[in-house]
């Protein structure tokens, strides 16, 4: 007979077998028990997932109309909301597109570069040099990774790392965390190197990093992977103890 807590967890996770469903029905699991387990699942999300900036167009679609502040708005059904807000989304997209066109591309790199340089002044920031492996893409690759654990923020800098074809492969960063099994490093985001010269790439850690011990960049399929087979590791940087 399955433990009651197991059945509650299985119900919330949606992984009950037919036999377990029958057991759960016979046992009469209560809504309050299920809700408490759901809260636990939601708390793990809040504990583990880092905030990501929402795309401006999406944010615009969710915004209530701005015509009269402090006016109470009706929370309309989905389709009406989208229809009503469509023009706002379009306006946001247009503004974003115009900004992108008007702003010279060259301005983007210094932004990341300036942020990287700024981060090096944070008290706990570590600047770790890359060590290239024997992988052909890494021949002559140099650079470093800057990481602040307090800010959960970092940047990678490369020179000489081979350009990739984003349709065929992408680079992916992995952060090995002393608080986690080294079989499952934290995904630090995928990125491309599509131009020569120095490249600065912001790190997008998908989970909170406890004690970073090693940063490693692999070559993966487009979009990246959840767990790397580590067949092509191009550079690594060891964190100081």
């Amino acid at each position: 007979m399955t433990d009651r807590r197991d059945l509650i967890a299985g119900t919330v996770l949606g992984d009950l077998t037919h036999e377990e469903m029958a057991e759960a029905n016979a046992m009469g699991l209560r809504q309050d028990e299920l809700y408490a387990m759901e809260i636990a699942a939601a708390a793990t999300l809040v504990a583990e997932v880092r905030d990501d900036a929402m795309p401006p167009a999406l944010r615009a679609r969710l915004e209530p109309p701005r015509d009269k502040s402090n006016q109470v708005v009706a929370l309309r059904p989905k389709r009406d909301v989208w229809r009503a807000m469509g023009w706002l989304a379009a306006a946001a997209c247009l503004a974003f597109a115009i900004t992108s066109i008007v702003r010279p591309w060259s301005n983007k790199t210094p932004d990341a570069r300036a942020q990287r340089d700024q981060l090096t002044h944070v008290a706990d920031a570590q600047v770790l040099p890359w060590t290239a492996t024997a992988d052909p893409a890494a021949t002559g690759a140099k650079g470093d990774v800057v990481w602040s654990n307090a800010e959960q923020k970092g940047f990678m800098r490369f020179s000489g790392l081979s350009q990739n074809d984003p349709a065929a492969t992408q680079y992916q960063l992995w952060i090995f965390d002393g608080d986690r099994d080294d079989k499952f490093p934290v995904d630090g985001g995928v990125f491309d190197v599509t131009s020569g010269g120095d490249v600065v790439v912001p790190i997008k850690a998908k989970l909170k990093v406890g004690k970073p011990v090693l940063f490693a960049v692999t070559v993966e399929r487009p979009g990246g992977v959840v767990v790397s087979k580590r067949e092509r590791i191009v550079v690594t940087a060891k964190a100081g103890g």
Partner: protein
Amino acid sequence: MNQEPMLLPQVAQGNPDAIRACLDRYGGLVWGIARRFFGASPDAEDAVQDAFLDLWRSAGRYDPRVSSEAVFVALIARRRFIDRRRRGARRLDTEPLPEAQAAPSQTTAEQVTEAKLAERAMQELRPEQRQVLVLSTCHGMSHEEISQATGMPLGTVKAHVRRGLVRVREVLGVQR
């Protein structure tokens, strides 16, 4: 030790400023969860829209004695994202409780630390147990997908996820 002002009661009243503030405060969280469930798929944006619309509708059911707002928001988002991923499959029977059943167990000060408690519970888990729980709850991966990605037997994955979640619940001490 807290605390930002609560927004959901005002959201429930349809206050547009509260809705904007809610998007400011929790938009990054919901989008972050969506990105883990759906990656770069266009589904992520649709799922976030669903989640917030559901949140606007459900805001009146939020009970600050039971969870923080952030956890309530994550709970709503998780439901919508699971629904979207498992469309066609059995839906979770997870309607919020009526008021009468809400039996608070946490003090106000404790509410704001529940994510930290969950984090502590996660730290207590064995690394492989923690990893599969993260892949399940934070990435929305099925046990089969986790088994394929990690090489762990399916039964082990299932046991790790369930026991891990039960442990987090015990540490949180949510008594309903």
